[in-house]
């Protein structure tokens, strides 16, 4: 029943977008309730569909012809439904929160319109049944992030950050597009006879054809698609836009740069996992890039003082985990998808929570700088405690959601190493986990513990903001334990619906791994995540809490080069913006312009000067008197007619 209305999951937020943009200016709260209701209705629908397809393990697929050899369609399988549920649920809460947070902003209607469009785009991306449609929504998500990051467009930093986000992700999108084009070409070459209603870029068709496409092509396709994911999901080296994207309202950060949009890249890799599995070199790239990003971003999270930036780097780092979790899937096959997606879902809850808490603090305190906070817990009990819940689960405190999900990725990475596929992802993941625990609680202690370090406003946020926090906190803490086993199985078996044979793909990819081979995990490895999680929190407590025993100046000084590099964020801005964009790219543009003016146009002018013998007389021709030109035209036509006349005489002769 519900599945017949699946299109409304996207349709209603689009409707909300239209309504708010035209009517929102005249309505209380900018018509934000349209967006909230539409998103919530999407959740109800998704949940209804989930109830229908889960018991018998079915999928929903609807499709229609679009243009040329492409189609538009809806595909709801386990992978898609968990995303739909998460996005609609988290976005409903965030939009509700925004009703309070954005109160009083003159652009409220615009905010809710864009937020509605964003929700629609993200949901459309998730339930696409083919790669082209996925790409289209992918780009619309990018557009919305551009609009929302630049929401306060009068602020130069916001306008810059918006542009940067769009451009950097565009670099990834370019690769994604190249990947689609390459895949399409290979599919065309196969000369498949497609059954009725099947199209070349549909996932089903792609999965079916994997065994027919040459393996080197598969590797290229996979690497290019991953390039898109790198851009969208903020993986190294295209992560630079994400921390800057914090220029938008905090709800935007929570919605786009933490909970949903950035997960699109991970979702893409998960969606195309059979392809990656058949191309183990590409999978290796995913594992290493993901692992490295997890660690790299975590190091920067350690030194930032802007509360949102710490969370932003934490997002980058956690996305690295998800990527790595998929990448190390070479060791375990399709179940890696379940593991990684579980972290994705869990992360969405707790990162949305953390951002909204940070928003609540910023809303009250009026600054982003943690050096001016301190002791906030006394004045903001609910915010502080829910943020503690989010921090615990991010740090991987035992039995929280984040603990299970991260642990499972680390275990998989361990197997990856134990099977001889490389230890680096495991090492990256473990070190990053320790740093995560440290920076998370550095943030919490600096903000909520100790004494106020400036004279900030001391009041708790309204309940329309706190309500969503409490709900998210409950999920962040307790979702993991009861659901994890079912989740792994349900999502891990996603590709059975399409008859994907991972054994066969392993043969194509040349995996030398025998599945089911027992990997022995020593006891110390098993309890290591617990030690790391708790240990990291303790270290942070020793440095930053009221029980402080050390000071950070004891290990680093102002002149410490490492600290300097971290504060400078590895000179990324210098390299990306000042050198690459402004020197290299703009330099090429200037040189091109010079060539155009001096050489190409210069030649044209010279030729005209020589051939017409104008040179000096050109100035006389440019008398500006229209009659002269008219004479020229008439003369031209006269010549033409004479020619014709001659021609006709030629015929006569």
């Amino acid at each position, binding site marked *: 029943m519900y599945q017949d209305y699946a299109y409304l999951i996207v349709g209603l937020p689009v409707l909300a977008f239209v309504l708010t943009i035209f009517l929102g200016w005249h309505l209380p709260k900018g018509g934000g309730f349209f967006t909230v209701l539409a998103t919530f209705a999407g959740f109800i629908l998704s949940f209804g569909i989930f109830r229908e397809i889960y018991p018998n393990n079915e999928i929903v697929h609807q499709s229609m012809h679009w243009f040329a050899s492409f189609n538009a369609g809806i595909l709801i399988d386990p992978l898609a439904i968990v995303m739909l549920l998460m996005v609609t649920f988290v976005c409903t809460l965030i939009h509700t929160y925004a009703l309070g947070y954005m109160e009083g902003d003159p652009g409220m209607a615009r905010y809710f319109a864009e937020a509605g469009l964003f929700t629609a785009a993200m949901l459309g991306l998730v339930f696409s049944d083919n790669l082209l449609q996925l790409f289209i929504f992918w780009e619309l998500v990018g557009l919305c992030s551009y609009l929302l990051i630049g929401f306060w467009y009068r*602020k130069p930093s916001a306008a810059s950050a918006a542009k940067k986000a769009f451009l950097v992700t565009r670099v990834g999108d370019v690769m994604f597009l190249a990947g689609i084009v390459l895949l399409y070409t290979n599919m065309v070459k196969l000369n498949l006879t497609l059954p009725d209603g099947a199209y070349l870029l549909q996932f089903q068709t792609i999965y079916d054809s994997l065994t027919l496409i040459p393996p080197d092509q598969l590797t290229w396709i996979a690497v290019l698609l991953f390039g898109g994911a790198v851009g969208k999901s903020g993986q190294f080296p295209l992560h630079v836009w994400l921390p800057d994207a914090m220029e938008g309202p905090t709800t935007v950060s929570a919605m786009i740069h933490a909970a949903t949009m950035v997960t699109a890249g991970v979702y893409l890799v998960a969606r195309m996992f059979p392809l990656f599995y058949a191309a183990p070199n590409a999978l290796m790239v995913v594992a290493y890039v993901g692992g490295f990003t997890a660690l790299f971003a975590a190091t920067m999270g350690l030194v930032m003082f802007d509360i949102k930036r710490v969370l932003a780097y934490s997002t980058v780092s956690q996305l690295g985990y998800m990527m790595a979790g998929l990448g190390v899937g070479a060791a375990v096959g399709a179940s890696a998808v379940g593991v990684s997606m579980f972290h994705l879902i869990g992360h969405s809850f707790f990162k949305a929570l953390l951002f909204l808490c940070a928003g609540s603090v910023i809303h009250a305190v009026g600054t982003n700088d943690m050096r001016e906070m301190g002791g906030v817990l006394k004045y903001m009990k609910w915010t502080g405690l829910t943020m503690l819940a989010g921090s615990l689960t991010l740090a991987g405190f035992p039995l929280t959601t984040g603990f299970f999900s991260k642990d499972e990725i680390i275990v998989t990475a361990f197997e990856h190493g134990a099977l001889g596929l490389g230890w680096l992802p495991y090492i990256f993941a473990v070190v990053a986990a320790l740093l995560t625990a440290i920076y998370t609680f550095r943030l919490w202690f600096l903000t909520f513990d100790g004494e106020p370090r400036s004279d900030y406003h001391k009041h708790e946020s309204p309940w329309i903001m706190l309500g969503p926090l409490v709900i998210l906190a409950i999920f962040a803490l307790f979702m993991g334990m009861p659901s994890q086993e079912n989740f792994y199985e349900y999502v891990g078996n996603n590709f059975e619906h399409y008859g994907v044979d991972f054994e066969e793909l392993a043969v194509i990819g040349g995996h030398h791994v025998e599945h089911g081979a027992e990997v022995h995990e020593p006891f110390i490895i098993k309890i290591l995540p617990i030690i790391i999680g708790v240990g990291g929190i303790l270290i942070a407590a020793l440095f930053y809490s009221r029980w402080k025993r050390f000071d950070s100046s004891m290990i680093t000084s102002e002149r410490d080069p490492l600290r300097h590099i971290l504060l400078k964020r590895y000179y990324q801005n210098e390299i990306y913006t000042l050198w690459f964009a402004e020197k290299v790219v703009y330099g090429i543009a200037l040189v091109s312009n010079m060539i155009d003016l001096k050489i190409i146009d210069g030649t044209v002018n010279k030729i005209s000067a020589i051939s017409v013998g104008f040179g000096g007389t050109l100035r006389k021709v440019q008398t500006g008197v229209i009659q002269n030109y008219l004479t020229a035209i008439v003369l031209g036509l006269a010549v033409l007619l004479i020619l014709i006349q001659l021609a006709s005489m030629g015929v006569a002769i």
Partner: protein
Amino acid sequence: MIENAISLMIAIPLIAAVFAFLFGKAAKYVALIGSLVPLVISLQMFQEFDKASNAMQFVESYDWVPAIGVKYTVGVDGIGLPLILLSTIVSVLVVVYSWGESKRSNQFFALLLLNEVGVLGVFTALDFFLFYIFWEVVLIPMFFLIGIWGGPRKDYAAIKFFIYTHVASLIMLLSIFALYFSYRTPEGLRTFDMLTLLGATGDSTMFSPMLLNVIFFGLLFGFLVKMPAVPFHTWLPDAHVEAPTAGSVLLAALLLKMGGYGLFRIVMPMLPNVSENYITLMAIIGVVSIVYGGFLALAQKDLKKMVAYSSVSHMGYVLLGAGALSVLSVQGAMFQQFSHGLITCVLFMSAGTIQHTAGTRIISELGGLADRMPKFAVLMLAGFMASLGLPGMCGFVAEVSVLAGSFASVQPHMQLYVLIVIFGGIAVTAGYHLWSMQKVMFGPILKKYLDLKDPHSYELLSMSILILLIIYFGVQPGTITDIMGVAAEPLVKPFIAMAQTGVI
């Protein structure tokens, strides 16, 4: 079914042009009616058009100068019809956008109508003689639009535009004559009939390879200048910078399309009979235009000049798609013509509106306009997004079709070209659009612009309609790409056959 639909469609704006010229202040009303009627006729034609056939439809043929084989023959197929729609739509919207024009308004609106006559003639003429006349007719209104309503260097720009494109036209004319004089019908007569002559180019007893190659290059040159393709593009920025907004819009949206139309109508049917290396040449010129044009746009300080160079870049897709010779790429190239026609209107209208509200188009002197012109900002942003290839808008569909179709082409090297475009062009395109958008519209508003407000409603109206069309054709491209696909098939078929026999 309207009798003589095409002739009517061409005649009405011509008559209206005369009336507009005579009517003085009421000229704009005449112009609006005179452009709306052809729009209605073209829509009706689109309704009645047999979308599954690639034969010429609505054909009218009358003897004109029988002694030398000149006929008045017009007709449309899937190549011409979309461009006719584009012309009639854009003509109406340009009239609407220019509603406030007060300088010599009777002449101004008459010229807009005359321009419509010319382009509609070009897109429907099936007789080379007629084709050439219309081709030249188009020059006249544009020349005067630049020369009378243009900016400070209008004389230089007008004369450069005129000489450059006129030289190209003359070379094209010589090629047409060469075709004409090389061919006799079975009855021993000469003819200017386009389809007959083009069909005959395969006959090596009439056309020696040497001659045919010369003819081919003459025609190709004429069209490349018009498009314009690198390195024959330098007349375009000058013409645009000096042209009034309406002139720029017509120039970019319609006149450039004549070059692309010539490719599909005249050059491509000849391609199988000349060296296959020329295909590669076309594709390479296309790729260079896309990438080099993109970088040029990035270097510009004048918003309008930037938009002008973006046209060079976008028209490169037409050449690439045509040169790649797969059904999808050719269809994409045709659609690129259509979609660029819509999108570039918005861009030039934006530049024009900024010029006449803020008084300058120099990007670095502008800033924060969105604050005072919110509605205009939305429309301009939408146009820029369409131009950088945002999905959901028609430019994306066209470009993806060209890229995917070219990559899957039977042509060797084509994959390399596509990769160059993807990696060298797309990000740069996004770059200059976003950079200029940020500089002009966002950030704090500059003091001197505090009194600005949204432009006239007729300007906003025409831009809104264009955006709606851009989105409509981005979501439902099949409306028009289907007939393009039908038209593309016969163009591509000879090459598929050649590829199968291993010739290329």
